[in-house]
């Protein structure tokens, strides 16, 4: 890894790898989304006004969707793909 780093071209941006900081934020964000989703869903049940009910339902769906978007970033499959890609590109640059 260290060797690669010295030999390869400079990276113009960080590789698609989850850093420790990313993970901490992702964990936080997923718990916010989960809570927001639960809250919106439970309010949707309690509300009297159908318009507000619908809005809450919609919000619950949005938060669930966001949760899933974030979850994808920590999925093993994504990690494998990212690592594979990273190794490919660093091999390429060292071979050249």
């Amino acid at each position, binding site marked *: 890894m260290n060797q690669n780093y010295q030999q390869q071209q400079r990276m113009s941006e960080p590789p698609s790898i*989850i850093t420790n900081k990313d993970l901490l*934020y992702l964990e*936080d964000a997923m718990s916010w989304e989960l809570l927001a989703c639960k809250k*919106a869903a439970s*309010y949707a049940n309690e*509300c*009297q006004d159908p*318009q507000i009910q619908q*809005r809450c339902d919609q919000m619950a769906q949005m938060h669930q969707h966001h949760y899933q978007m974030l979850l994808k970033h920590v999925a093993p499959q994504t990690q494998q793909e990212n690592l594979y890609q990273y190794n490919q590109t660093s091999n390429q640059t060292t071979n050249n």
Partner: protein
Amino acid sequence: MQRDQSGQRTANETHIKGQQQEYQQSRQQQYYPYHNEQQQFKHQTQQSQQQQNGSMQIKNSQTGQLSRVKGPEMNDRDRLNDMLATEKYLTDNYNVFAREASHRSLYQDVQQIHSQTHQEIRGLFNLMFEKGWYTLQAESTQQVSQAHQQFSDYQTQFASSQQQGYGQQGYRQS
């Protein structure tokens, strides 16, 4: 605008506070404890006073569904306010997350979530306005024009003499 959207402010009906200076007479009323009917009454008096002063209040009339509810239990308006506060909390935090995210695909996703959450807040605000839970106060055209004059004059301080500012033609031309 931002302050008007604050959940807390509407929850406590403190948006009236901003108009304090203009309404010395009603000052005492403004610190009445939370009570729906009194609030509605205050609204009406404020409105009529305002019309006399000639400034414009932008507001939908309330549907009246909520004034019946007086107990400690949450009503629909409380729920919407709470959701609004939640969404605001989320955008604040996603703002930081987006700034700190490492690689591009993560950054892009976080930004997308951030902007969708903002849109949701806008939708919530519009819904609450539609329900008559937000009162906006139009600034007098005189005050607005005065600000325009003042900040037009400040333009001499810019390094570039270009009047258009940040446009398609490129702001780096010199």
